[in-house]
């Protein structure tokens, strides 16, 4: 069962964003990286904001990171989520990416235990039509 129920919105990427989701389909977490200065950036964009290069690499990353911030949603604003509250939303700062962050969820953590600074690992969550990068606080779960 995915962390959020069927009927929750799914990614609807624009042209610059598609390679991220093509990698997700292979269960690879890849972020855009400047092929000239080497800086990671997210969300994807056609120029490096540091050196303005247009040369892009899609670099695979480990998916280790820590919780930068979070909220616990008690009042659902989408009909598909009405029976799912409370659920967590976490912002994960990814290791080795000069601070790139992903909005995601912690799939194995009671909402009362979510906190800033929590170390987390990537967990591929199957959703209709693909895979979403979610996270777990337990490396054992991430490895299965």
């Amino acid at each position, binding site marked *: 069962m995915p962390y*959020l129920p069927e009927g*929750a919105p799914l*990614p609807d990427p624009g042209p610059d964003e598609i390679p991220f989701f093509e990698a997700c389909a292979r269960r690879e977490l890849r972020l855009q990286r400047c092929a000239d200065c080497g800086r990671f*950036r997210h969300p994807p964009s056609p120029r490096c904001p540091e050196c303005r290069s247009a040369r892009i690499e899609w670099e695979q990353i480990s998916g280790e990171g820590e919780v*930068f911030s979070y909220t616990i949603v008690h009042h659902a604003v*989408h009909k598909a989520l009405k029976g799912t509250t409370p659920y967590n*939303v976490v912002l994960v700062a990814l290791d080795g990416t000069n601070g790139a962050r992903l909005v995601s969820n912690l799939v194995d953590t009671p909402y009362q235990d979510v906190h*800033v600074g929590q170390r987390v690992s990537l967990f591929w969550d199957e959703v209709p039509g693909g895979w979403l990068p979610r996270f777990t606080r337990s490396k054992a779960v991430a490895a299965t």
Partner: protein
Amino acid sequence: MRQERLKSGDVAAFAGATCIAGVGETRITSRGGQGDRTEFDLLCEAIQRAADDAGIPLDEIDGFVSFGAERHEPAVVQATLGIPVLRFSNLVWGAGGGGCPGSVMNAALAVHAGICRNVVVYRSLCQGQYHRYGQYRQRADGDTWMSPYGLMSPAQFFAMSFRRHMHLYGTRAEHLSHVAVPFREHAQRNPRAVQYGKPLTIEQHRTARMITDPFRLFDCCLETDGAGAVIVTSRSRARDTRHGGVPILAAAQASNKGWGLGPTGSHNMPEADYATINSRELAKALFGMSGLKPSDIDVAQIYDAFSGIVILALEDFGFVGRGEGGPFVAEGNLRWGTGALPTNTSGGLLSEGYLHGLNLIIEGVRQMRGESTTQVDDAQTCFVNGGGAAAHKSAVILGRKETA
């Protein structure tokens, strides 16, 4: 001291030369409370009221400016009201309420450039007739990085920013009471406020149902229906209007490097800006233009779609230092009569109504005319900002009205 600074400050030409000459608004109701009156009908009423308030005939309005997904475009408004000529139109890009004071700025620029004479700045917003801002809708940008994970509403977006602020500075959810409760107190003095006659205690605030931790029910914006408008004209022309002009001492738009869509996008703004409302460059521009310091501001209207935004705004604009916003509000400083910075004297977006910030401009004008229901004695300057969680931001400083 202050008067000297007002005269000798490094004032941008347009700011010194333009005024707000009229304000108008409809009754603001809870969502769905306007009966058979449509949003467009309410907008027409607001514009007529603003023109009447200024004593400027509708026929002499020749500029139309708005912001933030306004539905009613200038040529249609012009045609509906039978206005002879449109010479200028403008919509501040994106930014939600962040574009509200920016729309006043753009109106002032057009007047000062001599492109048109009298500009109406307007915003109509009936959440009971169109979509509700508090419910999920797919956004054009950024949605793909958030909604699949259940991050779907402005309250949720900004809860993430505020949580980070709590982590960095020890700001507490209890501090939010000292934003929401004083604004509700101010609304008890304002019969136009949606929450007039509905006082709120600290206890009620802290025990209300949780919406998105740490925000509870009364930390979140009202969903209301209504419309508002103001008339911007030249300082010289304003002297001949009914009330005289309220001078625009400064008006600016800005965004910090790398902010992008901020919390309404993927939450990848620079780390130093994460727990802010992206208004630090704006503050430099605004206060630099006016020649004033934050301590020169007598009354403030701070964009309060969520209580936590106010604490971060106080820091960004330099009313307090970084991390000091929570303790500052907890000392009662936003309260009229006793606080150091009486704020949101009409009740604000949390308790008066949600015209996407335009009602804060209108209340700013009332303060500078001496007409507020919660008037700050001898107030000479009023600060008004726009926006919290969205993209770029804007603000104005208004001065005491001038009469012929």
